[in-house]
Every structure is written in structure tokens, then in C-alpha cells.
């Protein structure tokens, strides 16, 4: 009876369209039942675990770390609040994609920008799903069950990110003027010299020492530091180029990252408790920070600076964004405080990473490299123009002197029938590739070589050399590290195609349009068939591996080559 009276009262309120309930009393408060508090709920859920007594679970994932302290869940979430929240986030994302089409987004979007999405979105779903897989590792390694829900949510989040990004890519493919490159996306991911760099990033999340990979490299460095440039800075640039879809998807993705950062920090605090782990933590933070810088700054720096048509001089450059997100937010407020726990932080690496961007033109040299090998891409890169030059010069004084002529040459050589710029007489020296990060050794003065297990390798910098020779080894500073990963595979793309004709390599990779002859990559944004390069236009040029050539040299020749390489080059006008 009381329920009936209550319901009648609610109905009257609805009909009258007014709220005559006492202050603070809401319909929800009247009808909802007293539940258990979130802390109690999280505690009950964490109590689902137990220590097996019939048969012990073998530790499936190797680590050289000792972990005895159970990590605590800082977020105190349970799955029943997680799923509706995520569904609501999805509804907003998919609603926005529909709205973008109704608003004719692609009429005004900048092709220069969308072309780079062919590369970015070919790479990113793999690291995302690798992160999902790595939650298996942390879920098993972390003592206790307190953080299990956090890891579970992260696992499902990463599944979300991977498939929502594949969906976004499909959406671009269906609606953007030139779908070629999107249409072969996962195949391209396996073949391209640039996507292998992204794979180094993704495989590092789940291979080798489990704590190194899944906690330090993924959570403590990639998610806590570099997702800010990946998923916050880049969407801002997308919006400036008329692309509302990428910000919609990636800011939704980034909203999950705070949960992952919390998981990572909690796990790190458990690992820190054991003094024996401190040496490994120093190693892994150093390796992870440097490699994230090498890979993420190369890709995202280039996309933000060279994929945009927006040249407002009041806008922050990538260097400024990096200083804000990585230097101030991450280094000062996250890394530095770790020192009070006795962890050695390599301040010089952080400063060197920043200097490489602002003083050594790391991003510009990577963009130059991408354009030098445009024919091996599965996206288009157009030449920078006078307007771009103005912006670069204002943000990076001296830019024109070093890169202006290169881009003028690039524009001149963008017509089919020209010599591919890689082989033109510009003075450009095709770079060696770093064995650690797989990024080309573009800062010539930092180039170094070393031998590991009797074989010669090339590195972009001293930290990269240290990463391969000392960090990724069976022993670190006298301590056995059998769980640490190893670099493997055919790591250098140029080695795979050494001696091949350009046309044959492009055909072998499948980077050809459905007519069987027109390249997917083009050094311009013309959509006229007459302007498009075909296999015949690039035939007759041979790919050479700089590393194989270096290995064939005598020690004296090699020494001379390295010295010459470190001097760099000066671009000539063609």
C-alpha cells in the first residue's frame, strides 16, 4: 500500500511537471535502495581470490623482479559501474561519427592530415591489443586480488581501443576521397619499414621480462607519459584540420588511460618495496623512456608537425607540447619523486630527449626520412609549401636553412617520371637504422656502432647502444637477468629488400592500387590519374641496406664511413 501511495505521488509530480519535493529529495533517492559503499564493494570483490591448495599455478610469465607486496587498487571500481559507463562513452563516440557524416566532414577535411592516418591507424590497434594481452601477465604476477578488477578493466579497455580504432579506420576508408592504403591496412602493418617501428613499441608491451614489459614500458612510461602526445596533442591537431572523428575516438580512449596510469603506479609501488628491484627499475625506466621518446616522438611529432595545414603561429609546436606534457607533467611530477624511493633517474636522458627535438631537429629529420622513402609508404606525403616554411621558421629558427631546399626539391620531383628523390642528386645520405628502436639514425652526430655476440650493429645514440648491448642481455651489471627479452627477427627492412628493384619491392609488399600498377603512395595530393606514379616510374632503382654495406667494409673503411656519416650532409637544390 505504501508503495502504491509513493508511486501515485511520483506520477502526480510527473504530470504536474513541477518539483514540489523537499530540497535535496530526488526521485532517485526515494526509489533507490541502500546499497553497499564502493569501498566495501571493492573489498568484497577483491576477496573473491584465494590461495590454491590442491595444485599450485605455475608462474607463466618470466620476470627477474621480486614482488611480495600486493598492489592496492587506487580506483576502487567494480565492473557493474564500469560497463554502463563505457557503453555511454561509446554511444557518444558513435553518435559523433554519425554527426560528422551528416555535417559533411570530409568535404572540408585536409587530405594531408587523413593520409597520415593511414600510417597511424595501421600501427596503433596492435599496441592496444598487445596491452590487453599483457594484463594476463600482470593479473598473474601481482600478489593478491585487490588490483585484479583494475587489470580486468584495462584488459577490456584495450580490447575497446583496438576495435574502436579499427572501426574508425574503416570509417575513413568508406568516406575519404582516397581509400587506398586504408584498404590494405593490417597487411601493410606487417610489411612496411615504418610500421615495424610501431611493432617494436607494441611487442615491447608483452614480450620479455613481464614487469619490464607490462608495468614499466607500457604503464609507467608509455601510458603515463606518452599517451598525452599520442591521444591528447594529436587529436587537437586533427580538429584543426577539419577531422572531428579522431578527437572523438581518441579522447574517449584517453579517458580510459587514467585508470591504466593508476594501475601502473600501484604496481610500481609494489615493485619498489623490494630493494633488490631497484637496479632493474633504473634499467627499465631508462630503456623505456628513451625508446618511447625515439618511437613516439618520431611518429607523432612528424604527424603533428607535417600532417597539418594549420599554421597559426600562436599554436604550440611539438617541442612546446613535449615540454608541457613530458617534461613538466611527467618528468617533474612523476619520475623525479621516484628518487626519494632510491631509484636512480637518468635526468640527462630526459634533457637529451628534449634537446634532440629543439636543438637537433629530430622530428624534422624523421619527416625528411619519411619523405625520402615516400615510394615505400602506403600513404601520401605532399611537399611542404611556403606557408609551412614560414611556420617552421618561426617555431624552429634556422629550419629553412636545413630543410627548406629539401622540400622544394621534393615538390619539384613529385611529378611522375622524375627521379625518385631518394636517388636524385640532392646530397641526402640514406640513413642507417637503429638496431634498438628501429628508427633511422637521423641525428648523424649521435650515430654509433658496436658489436654484440660478434656481430656489428648500428645505433641512433649511446642509449640505444646501451639498450641492446647491456639492457637486453642475460646479465645486467653482474646480475643474471634470464627473463629479459632479446631483439630478434629480421629487424632491418632494408636488409630484407637489399638488392631489390624498387618496383619489385613495392609489388612484393602489395602497396599497389587495384589496377595493378599505380602506387598507393604518392609524393603529392593530386587525385588526377595523370599525376599518379606507377611501378614503371620507379623501376630501375635498387634498394641497398646500409648495415650490410657497413659489415662488408674493412675496419679502416668502416671507421672512415662512421666519421663521414657523423658529419652529416648539406642538401643541394636539384
Amino acid at each position, binding site marked *: 500500500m505504501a508503495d502504491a501511495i509513493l508511486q501515485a505521488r511520483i506520477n502526480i509530480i510527473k504530470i504536474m511537471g513541477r518539483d514540489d519535493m523537499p530540497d535535496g529529495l530526488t526521485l532517485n533517492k526515494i526509489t533507490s*535502495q541502500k546499497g553497499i559503499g564502493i569501498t566495501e564493494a571493492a573489498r568484497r570483490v577483491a576477496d*573473491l581470490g584465494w590461495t590454491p591448495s590442491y595444485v599450485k599455478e605455475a608462474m607463466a610469465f618470466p620476470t627477474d623482479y621480486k614482488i611480495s607486496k600486493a598492489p592496492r587498487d587506487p580506483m576502487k571500481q567494480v*565492473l557493474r559501474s564500469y560497463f554502463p559507463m563505457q557503453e555511454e562513452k561509446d554511444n557518444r563516440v558513435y553518435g559523433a561519427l554519425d554527426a560528422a557524416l551528416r555535417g559533411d566532414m570530409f568535404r572540408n577535411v585536409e587530405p594531408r592530415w587523413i593520409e597520415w592516418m593511414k600510417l597511424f591507424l595501421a600501427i596503433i590497434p*596492435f599496441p592496444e591489443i598487445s596491452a590487453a594481452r599483457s594484463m594476463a601477465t600482470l593479473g598473474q604476477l601481482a600478489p593478491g586480488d585487490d588490483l585484479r578488477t583494475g587489470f*580486468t578493466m584495462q584488459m577490456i579497455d584495450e580490447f575497446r581501443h583496438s*576495435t574502436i580504432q579499427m572501426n574508425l579506420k574503416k570509417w575513413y576508408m568508406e*568516406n575519404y576521397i582516397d581509400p587506398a592504403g586504408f584498404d590494405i591496412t593490417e597487411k601493410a602493418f606487417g610489411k612496411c619499414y615504418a610500421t615495424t617501428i610501431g611493432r617494436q613499441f607494441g611487442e615491447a608491451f608483452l614480450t620479455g621480462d613481464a614487469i619490464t614489459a607490462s608495468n614499466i614500458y607500457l604503464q609507467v612510461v608509455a601510458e603515463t607519459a606518452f599517451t598525452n602526445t599520442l591521444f591528447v596533442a594529436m587529436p587537437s591537431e586533427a580538429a584543426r584540420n577539419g577531422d572531428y572523428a579522431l578527437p572523438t575516438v581518441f579522447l574517449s580512449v584517453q579517458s580510459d588511460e587514467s585508470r591504466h596510469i593508476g594501475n601502473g603506479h600501484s604496481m610500481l609501488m609494489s615493485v619498489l618495496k623490494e630493494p633488490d628491484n631497484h637496479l632493474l627499475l633504473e634499467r627499465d625506466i631508462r630503456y623505456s623512456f628513451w625508446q618511447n621518446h625515439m618511437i613516439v616522438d618520431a611518429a607523432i611529432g612528424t604527424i603533428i608537425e607535417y600532417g597539418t595545414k594549420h599554421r597559426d603561429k600562436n599554436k604550440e609546436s611539438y617541442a612546446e607540447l613535449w615540454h608541457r606534457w613530458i617534461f613538466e607533467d611527467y618528468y617533474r611530477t612523476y619520475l623525479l619523486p621516484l628518487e626519494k624511493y632510491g631509484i636512480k633517474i637518468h635526468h640527462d636522458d630526459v634533457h637529451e630527449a628534449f634537446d634532440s627535438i629543439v636543438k637537433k631537429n629530430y622530428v624534422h629529420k624523421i619527416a625528411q626520412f619519411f619523405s625520402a622513402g615516400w615510394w615505400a609508404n602506403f600513404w601520401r606525403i605532399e611537399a611542404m609549401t611556403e606557408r609551412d616554411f614560414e611556420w617552421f621558421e618561426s617555431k624552429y629558427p634556422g629550419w629553412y636553412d636545413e630543410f627548406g631546399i629539401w622540400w622544394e626539391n621534393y615538390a619539384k620531383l613529385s611529378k611522375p617520371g622524375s627521379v625518385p628523390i631518394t636517388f636524385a642528386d640532392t646530397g641526402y645520405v640514406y640513413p642507417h637504422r637503429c638496431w634498438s628502436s628501429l628508427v633511422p639514425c637521423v641525428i648523424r652526430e649521435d650515430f654509433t656502432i658496436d658489436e654484440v655476440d660478434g656481430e656489428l650493429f648500428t645505433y641512433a645514440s649511446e642509449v640505444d647502444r646501451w639498450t641492446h648491448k647491456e639492457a637486453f642481455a642475460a646479465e645486467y651489471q653482474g646480475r643474471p637477468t634470464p627473463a629479459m627479452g*632479446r*631483439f630478434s627477427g629480421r629487424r632491418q627492412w632494408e636488409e630484407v629488400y637489399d638488392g631489390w628493384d624498387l618496383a619489385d619491392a613495392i609489388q612484393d609488399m602489395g602497396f599497389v*592500387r587495384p589496377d595493378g600498377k599505380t602506387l598507393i603512395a604518392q609524393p603529392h595530393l593530386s587525385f588526377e590519374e595523370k599525376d599518379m606514379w606507377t611501378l614503371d616510374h620507379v623501376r630501375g632503382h635498387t634498394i641497398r641496406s646500409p648495415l650490410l654495406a657497413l659489415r662488408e667494409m674493412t675496419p679502416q673503411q668502416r671507421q672512415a664511413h662512421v666519421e663521414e656519416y657523423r658529419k652529416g650532409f648539406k642538401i643541394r637544390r636539384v
Partner: protein
Amino acid sequence: MTMQETTAASAAAGAKVFPGSDSRRYNYFEPKGRKATHYEDVTVDVQPDPERYLLQNWIISFGDGTPTYSKDWTALKCADWHGFRAPDQEWERTHYQRQSTIVGMIQNVVENARRAGAPQRFDKAWVAVLQNHVGAFKHAEYGLGTALMRAQRYGYTQMVNNAILTNASYKLRFAQDLTLYLAEVGSDIGGFDLDAGKAHWLDDPIWQPCREAVEHIRAATDFLEQYFAVNLVFEPLVGELFRSGFVMQVAAAQNDFSTPSVISAAEADYERNLANAVELFALLLRDPVHGEDNRTMLQSWFTHHGGLAVKAALQLQPLWSLPRVKTASFADAFERARDRVAAIGREIGIDADLPALPPVEVGQAAAVTDAAAE
């Protein structure tokens, strides 16, 4: 005229016609049907491998040389691991929609039941069953969920791993559903001991074979053995037996309409996970090269985990005697479980026929003390 000036006025599809301008489908995999489904588009080949596109192979390995993904992580072999497609076709959006709908359904049922004062009207003997045995069973669900969460790391393709991942998600959600449900209805019932379930799970003889079976699944080092043991052995023989064969049939007669609603979500989850698992294992047994070896391996896994699951099921028999109003019998429930597992075995191609329940064994199992259960 420069190249820059020849760009189209619009960047929308169809603004220009040129080679490749109409290539608007992912063209690097064979759809299972005539056209690729949305699930296939967002799932297939996201985890690549040297057979499909990794020109440079895996580029990091474990310390012992094992690559990032290895076919050696299961004893089962397949001529084409890429052939598997999950029948439930789940990707992120459908997964959240379904999970969120379930969460909403459960919350509505529980809120309505509590608003109507239903928990206070549950039969007292039934309250003890909820407290001690449904409370114990939630740990079994959790154990299976954690096993699957680990297993989703190892599959050779994205399609296999994602099916296991969503399975883990469903199991872990359901373990939490039960935990929070019991905590909430328990707060409406005086003297409800929320710690009793775990105590029964750890010490009650009724639950020890069940715990043993779950711990064997968790400890299995072959990820497909785990996936097989969860969905094709434990679930039909123990999970469904307890959920459908006991709780869902008995609860209403004890004035409890809310618990079956909560439990029903797991039954629906299982139908989907079973469909995925059957599809995968049937594919492996149909394999022209490795089918027979796979059959032998699955048969041995069935013998091992089936034995543990049958022991667990039989030991649960006293539970059917606990409710005051008896509307279901263990013998009937076990018979249905036996039929179910045999049918699943036929579906994939292994012999999963279990001997009929010997009457004497029923009697022996029934002799297990009720005192421990209370």
C-alpha cells in the same frame, strides 16, 4: 599548375575517380561469409604473424628465444589458425552493450525485489543456501575468469584471443554480480554472513572437489586446455548443474524470484561462450592434418578434467536436500548435465559420454554431511 593546385575541392568519397578510389573494403582477408561482417573488419589480422604479413617476423623474443606469439603454447595444432571466427561476433561495442544491458537488468531486478521487501520473505533454509553455497560458488566463477584472463594472452590469432578475452570478461563480471548481489540482499536479511561463502569454498567438504577442479583449470599451462576445460567440461557438468539444475529451479519455491534472474545472466553468457568454444574445437578436430592428434589430446583433457568435474558435481548433491520446498532432484539435474556434455562432445567430435549415475553412488554422495553445508 603545381601538384598542390590539382587537389580536389572536396575530400569526400567520390569527389574524384582515379585508380583505387572505389576500394572501400578491407581486402586482405577472406570473409567467412559472402561479405565481411563488422566483427571481422575490426578483428581479423590485428594480431599479425609471420604467415600473415610479418615480413620481418616477430622482432622481440623472450629470454629463451620464444617469440612474441608462438604456436607451441598449445599442444593442439592447426593447419590454419586464421580460419576461426567467433559465432558471437563480439567486438567492443557489442560487448559493452551486452554487458551493460545485463548489469542494468540485474540492478533493476535487485532494486525492485528489495523495494518490495522480497529478501525478508525468502525461506530461512534458502537464505542459508544463498549465504553458504551461492556464496561459495561465486569463487568458482572467479577462478574460471582469472584462468581465462591468463589464457587470452596465448592464442595465435586475434580471433581466438578475443573470444577468450570476452569469456573472461563475462566470468569476472558474473563473479562480481553474485558478490554484490549477496551483499545487498544480505543487508536486508538479518544475520546474513557475507564471509560464510568463502569459508565454505575453502573448507566445506561439499565444495572441495569443485575447488580442486577449478584449481586444476587455473594451473593448466596449455591455454586451450583451460578454454576447453572451462567451457566444454566444467560449465556443463558443474556450472550449469548448479546454476540451472539447482538455483534456478529451486529458488522460486523458496519465495526467491531475484536470485534466478541474477543467475540467468550467466546461463546466457555461457550459451555464447559455448558456441565460440565449440566452433574453435570443432575446427581443430576437422583439421585435415592434425585433426586426429587433436582428438586424442582433447580426449585426454576430457578424461582428466571430466573426472574432476564429475567428482565435483557428485559432491554437490547434498545441496538439493537443503531447501525446505524440494522442486528438483540432483539425479535429474545430473542426468541433464550428462546429456549436455555428451551432446557437446558429439558436436566437436570427441566421446564425452559419461556413465549413468549409479544409484549406490547417489546414496553415498547424499551421505555427505549436511551439517557442513549449514
